[in-house]
């Protein structure tokens, strides 16, 4: 049941990414290019997504617990540290270079190009290497 929910969520999320243009790296780079030929439309993706989630979460949290689990599992870390910020810096560099963040990168696998395979394999390598860097 839980896995089925993840499957459904993945489907809906992916349609959201595709309709909004997040799976078009050139469009993403155009959104980030605020000093050049800026395409501001992607700001609406984040804006609407945040507002929708903000309202939706409030309604969901009115219930004592989620439908399929015993409790909500929310991040407990509170403080802003160097690990958080340095991670965000590295991610920002990678996102700026490629126009790809993790969700759109996975969706783009269906394009079947060598470039996207290389990116996703490197991303998974990064996932594996990262915990070793922390120690």
């Amino acid at each position, binding site marked *: 049941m839980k896995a089925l929910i993840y499957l459904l969520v993945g489907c809906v999320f992916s349609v*959201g990414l595709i309709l909004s243009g997040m799976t078009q790296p050139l469009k993403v780079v155009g959104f980030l290019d605020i000093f050049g030929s800026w395409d501001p439309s992607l700001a609406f993706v984040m804006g609407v*997504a945040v507002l929708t989630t903000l309202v939706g979460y409030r309604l969901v949290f009115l219930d004592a617990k989620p439908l399929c689990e015993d409790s909500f599992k929310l991040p407990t870390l509170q403080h802003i540290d160097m690990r958080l910020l340095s991670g965000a810096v590295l991610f920002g560099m990678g996102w700026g*270079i490629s126009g790809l963040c993790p969700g759109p990168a996975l969706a783009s696998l269906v394009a079947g190009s060598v470039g996207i395979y290389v990116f996703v394999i490197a991303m998974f390598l990064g996932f594996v290497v990262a915990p070793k860097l922390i120690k």
Partner: protein
Amino acid sequence: MLNSYVLASAGGLLIGLSAILLMYFNGRILGVSGIVSSLVSLAPSNKLCSAAFILGILISAAVFKQINPAWIPGALPMSLPSLFIAGILVGVGTRLGNGCTSGHGVCGIARLSKRSLAATATFMTVAICTVYVINLLSGVLS
């Protein structure tokens, strides 16, 4: 042009909806880097759920690619070493920073998390500067 704003908003609505669904049913943050990286993590996690999530992403993508391939063009036509480096940066960065555009940028900000606000402001600023520098360099070199 107007069309792209309408589509962007509709997409944003669906992204928000998927985050709400996951919280309502499973009580989890929709963070792509977290869910996906747990597949290759040694820490205990529900790998079946992670695999199902990726499968869901791929199913929708495969369907929409049939409708219009321009929606999912794949990676930018840049050198493979550049894409490799970008992939490593995204993988390492999202693990160190505990989140990406979805987990911090959407869910975290919607929870008014200080950490997510700081992370999002940081990666947005760095990404904008990166694009600026790349454009500057390619202008100089060409």
